[in-house]
Structures are given as C-alpha cells and as structure tokens.
C-alpha cells in the first residue's frame, strides 16, 4: 500500500498518514514514514508542518461552512416555512456555493499538492465562499450569510497561518 501511494505525486492525501494511523489501518510508524516520504517526493521543506494544527485551522472553516450548507438547504427547500427565496435560481446557486465551499474546504485540508496549486485552490475557494456570502446576503438569508462570512474568515486565517508555517 505504501509503495502504491508513494508513486502518486500529484494527488497525495495531505495528512493521509494521520488519518490512517487514527483509523489504525497502519501503524503510527508507517504513518510517519508516509509523511516524510511525501515531503521528499514533493521537494518541500524538510520541516514537517504540524498536520494536526493545519487540520484544526481548516476545521474552523469547515464547521461554519457545514452550518451554512444546512441553512442553504433550508433557504432553498423551505421545509419549515416560506423563506421568500425557496425554489429560486438564486437560492439554488447559493446552495451550490455552499456545497462547493464545504467540498473545497475538505479538499484543501486533505489534499497535498504543489505550493502554488495549493495556494491557488485556497484563493478559488475563498472567492467562491465570498460570492456565496454575498449571494446569501442578497437573498436576505442573514444567518446563512453570517456562517459563510465566518467560513471566509477562517479560510483566510487558515491560509495565512499555513503559509507562514511553511515559510518558516
């Protein structure tokens, strides 16, 4: 399994080792080897970023984005009461934006790619989340907008924090 993973250069899972070790699929030792190998393969700084901390920073974005996703579903589908935008194209776009934000946050958290691509992905995610925030505001779904705003703030924080760590 390790050999197979080591041959995948472009789409290695960012903290795959941690996940595997947590799930006891492989031993902690193997997980550590995996991390080191990944760093070598990517040619990044030999200092290993604290993957746990990195995950926490993105979890801070993931949590509000998940709440926002629930609120987006409610805004669009109106399971409880009329939302004023239920069934509208705007609410559907905002829902798609919320789904993309959740998916994007998970991806940048777990995917390991080149630095430039990783930063680009983060920026695309931020733009998408920002547009979804604006959409939620103009849909007058204020709780949804606030959650998306928190997501944006957390994403900015995560991006900056991780870039600084990597630079260090």
């Amino acid at each position, binding site marked *: 399994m390790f050999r197979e993973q080591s041959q995948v250069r472009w789409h290695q899972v960012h903290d795959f080792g941690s996940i595997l070790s947590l799930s006891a699929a492989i031993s902690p030792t193997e997980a550590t080897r995996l991390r080191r190998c990944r760093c070598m393969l990517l040619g990044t700084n030999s200092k290993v970023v604290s993957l746990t901390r990195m995950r926490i920073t993105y979890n801070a974005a993931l949590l509000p984005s998940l709440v926002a996703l629930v609120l987006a579903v409610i805004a669009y589908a109106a399971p409880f009461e009329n939302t004023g935008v239920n069934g509208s194209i705007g609410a559907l776009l905002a829902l798609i934006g919320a789904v993309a934000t959740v998916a994007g946050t998970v991806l940048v958290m777990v995917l390991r790619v080149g630095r430039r691509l990783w930063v680009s992905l983060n920026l695309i995610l931020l733009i998408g989340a920002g547009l979804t925030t604006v959409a939620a505001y*103009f849909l007058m779904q204020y709780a949804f907008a606030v959650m998306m705003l928190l997501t944006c703030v957390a994403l900015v924080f995560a991006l900056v924090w991780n870039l600084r760590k990597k630079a260090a």
Partner: protein
Amino acid sequence: MFRNFLPFLLVAASATASAQEADWTAFHGDVASTKFSNVKSFTPETVSDLERAWEYHTGDVSDGSGELPQTVWSATPIYANDTLYLGTPFYRIVALDPATGEERWSYSSDSRLEALTQPALKNRGVSYWESGREGVCEKRVFLGTMDAELHAVDADTGKRCTDFADGGVLNVNQWNDVNDVFPFSLLQPPLVVGNTLLLGWAGNDWAYSVAPPGNLMAIDARSGELLWDTGFVPPEMIPRTGTANIWTAMTADPELGLVYAPVSSPSPNYWGGQRLEPMRHATTVSAVDIETGEIVWSFQHVHHDIWDYDTPSAPTLVDIERDGETIPALVQATKQGFLFVLDRRTGKPIFPVEERPVPASAAEGEVAAPTQPFAMTPPPLGNALEFPGVWTLADIVSFGQCSRDREKYLYEGIFTPPSEQGTLFYPGTAGATNWGGVAVDPRNDILYVNASRIVQTIRLIPRQEYEELQSKESGNEAGYYPQEGAPYGIHLTDWSNWLGMPCWKPPFGTFSAIDLRTGERLYETPFGLAQLSGFYGFESWGSPTLGGPVVTAGGVVFIGASMDSRVRALNAATGEELWSDLVEAPAVSIPAVFTHEGADYVVFAVGGNSILKPEVSDQVVAYRLPE
C-alpha cells in the same frame, strides 16, 4: 319613487355604519373607495407588535405547470355579517370566522377552469348585499366567473339564492350579442349600491380589433333583472371597434345618485386606425346616473388611446377643503401616473389640466391625437414624465445591451406612439398605478398611493410578418398579441437585458403622500424590494407594485403589493416602514381592516401575479395586536 330613494338611504346608512363599526364591505372598503378605516388601535407605536392571528389556505391555486392555467388572485376580503368572505380564482366563495380563520361554509360555482379571456384564472373577490330584513337570502354574496356567470349565494348558509335569475345564477353573457368574440368575464365583483348591482366585465383586450363594446349594467340584486345597460362606444363605430369596458372596481356617490365608471381603452389597444373619430367615453372616468343609466359626464384622460392606458382603478371620493369651501371631489389615478382631481358633480378639474402636444405616429393608417391632458398638480407619480434613463449596472453586465437598445428604440416622451421600429413604453402597460388605486384619509384630505416605474418595449409587427412568426408566446401583460383585424400584431415586453435585469434606472416603485388641499407632495419614497431570481435589490431601488394601500385612523398605512412577498405597515406621516411580514407570494390585493368582537384585524389575501414574479399562493393571513 320610494324604490328610487331606498337604495340611497340604505347605502348612506351602510356607509355610516361602516365608518362607525369598522366594517369592510366592499373591494375598496366602501362605495366611496376611500380605503380608509376608522380603526385606531394600529398606531406607529403599536403596530410593530402585530402578530399573526390565523392563516388559511383556500386550496384554489395553480402555478400553471399542470393542466390548469396559472392563478392570479387579487381579492380583497370582505368583512360583513360578522363573517369574512372571499372569492377564489377557482370561482368559489369561502366564508371564514374572522377571529379564527375557520371555514364556516364554501360555495363552488362549478365554473369551467379555463383561461377563456385572460392568460390566467383571475378573481378579485366578491360583493355583499343585504336587504335589511331577516330571512333566507336577505343577505347575499355575489361572485362572478370567467365564463360570465353571476352567482347569488345566501351569506349565512352558502346556498344559492334561487329567486335570483335562473336558480341563483345569472348568465350575463346573454347580453353579449354584439361582436361577441369572447365572453364577458366577471373577474371584478359588482359594486353594490342599495338594491342595485353595477356590473362591468373583462375581455381579451389585445386579441381583436372588433370586440364586444364596453357597457355598464345595472342588475336588481334580488331578482337578477337587468335594470339598464349603458354603452361607452358610439353605436356607429361598433362595427369597427369595441371594448371601452369596465374591468376594474367602481365608485358611487349615493347622495348625488351617480356611479363613477373607470372606462378602459377601445380595441385594439395599440393601433387605432379604424377608430379615428372621437370616442368621448373611452379611457375616461364617467359619471352615470344610478337610476337611469344616463351618462352625466365623462372626463377623458387619454385621447385616442393607443397605449392601453385603461382607467385602471375606481376613483376615490373625497370632500376637499379649499379656500374655506368644501368641494365634492374625486381622485382618478391613472396608468400614466397623473392624478386627476375632479369635481365629482361636473367632471371639471379642480387642479389645472393642460393639453400638451405629443408625438405623432408613423404607423400605417394611424393618426395619434395631437395633444393629451397633463395633470401637473398633484405632481405625476414616480416622476412619470421623465424617462428613467439607462441603468449603468444593467448596462455593464450586459456589455452595453441596454445602451444599444436605448439607441434602437423610439422614445420621444410620454405618449410616444407604438411603432414598427419598436418604442420604449413608459409608464408601461401595468401602469404607474393599477387596480389598487389610492387611499385617502378624509380627516385631513391626504392621499396615499403606491406607483410603479416600469419601462416596456412595444413593437408593431406588420400582419404578414406576424403571421409568419414561428413562436408567438404570450403571457400576463407581455408577449405576442395578434390584434386580429388590424394591420399589426404586437410584441410587448419589459425592457431588460439578457440576465433579466431592468435596463432602466431604479427606483422601480415608490410610495407617496399628497395633500389634496394644496396638491403638494408630502413625500415620495422608494417602496418595497425588487427581486430577481430570488435576489433582493437595495431599499433605494424599490419594487414595482400591484395592489393598493389602506390608511387607518391610527396613522398607519397597510400595504402588500411589492415583489418581495412582504406585507407592510408604514407610518402615514413619513412613509417609514414600521412592520413587515413575509408571506408566500406578492399580496397584490388590497387588505381589509375591520373590527370583529372588539378586536381589530388586518387581513391580506396573498395571491401573487406573474407580472411581478412567478410565485402564486392561496394564503389568507390575518394580523392583530396581542391582547
């Protein structure tokens, strides 16, 4: 003699009772169409505490996606006989307990649910009549149908009044015997004055050049007998034209014995080459003697109408105090945005009305009127005389589409005739105002009105080209219309870019207060929120509106009408929003305000209208203050 006098007494008594007990017995609250309620508990201080008392769904709704046409429901609930009565777009009557919203009875007309003359199933409510005596069918509710039936139903039980016409159903179409290309659609309930029902009808305005000539019918509320019938099209022109009908609500002054009829435009709506002679009763407010049907006076606010500038609402009666004199007046709101204030005894303007030159027409066979009446006092609503201009935001996102359109289309000011090249049409056919009309507080003669600012494009399509068109889809006040018999069909649509954004500058709708003693505007403020694909606009953009306001003695105005599906309470003194609630669709009716068992209520019928947005509903919502 007594028969002649009795109706006036009854109406006068009814109007007085209405003022004291805060009933809501007619489409506009009373026969004077003031839309004023004596309810005092709703004040700027208390109204933010309003809460839903109950909610009811009629079940009579269609979004048009299934077998049934879409519904357009603009009914004002009627509060009378301690009951709330509603007509529905499936042509049923429901009677509700005003305190709880529980259904007491319902009546089905079993009418065909087909859009015979309209693009949608439409209803604007019911009428209430009572004889003053006890007994079965001494209190009646009247409902009209799309297929020209007038149903009389006992107000207590919901059973048909079999002594009315043919077993409780009057076939009004029996009198539709000239140019009868479509049935008389009874979408607006009759006006009840004493024992007389005053009845107009709606038709298929844009389809035919030669159409049924418009008339006003007086019908005995007890027997269904036709008392008189007055036409508004000169008999010698009937073989060439038609309509000039009354499709909206009417107003009456029982003391003067006059009914005020808002008469619409002749057919076809957008080309008048076959009707160049003066039609003095078309596109007018006309005063008709209630006893005889004689037309006493007509005030024509559009000459040779080729814009479908129907008189869209009942005029509102108000006694104006000016220079120490009390003038019995009426205010006629118009699609053009002018407010004509007339002496209701003579039809003479109280504020100056100028005849101003307007553009000529280049269409084949058409000769536009050289002048049109302009009422500059009070000021035109929504700044209707000034073209809004191209909206930069819409222009940028459409890569200049709006600017190119502005260059492409003809516009030489209000009353620019429809043309083959295409004309920018402002105010558009939905008008600055429509059936909501105006509300007036009779204590201070202050008028309240919502107005839309909608620019449309209209193009006259030569007959051969029209016939060759592959797609001629038409909808609610937009699309392709044949004008059969005329050299042109038409295409009418809102002026928007490829995203559906309006190409003209906001605001798209306003709310105004006007002092009728001086003619001065007290304020005009953007009203409501525009909505496109779910997204709301800024407050400063306002919203187009359909439906009208009610003003109460507590200094609060209630209004739905906006695109954003909100019902609102405004401070009458400032126009400031005090309270709002989200409902299921635009509340395009007029709310009813009344007192029942000591509690004050405001009730909205929430029907929606595809002119504003696609959402429709069958919701009725009642609000009251906490006990």
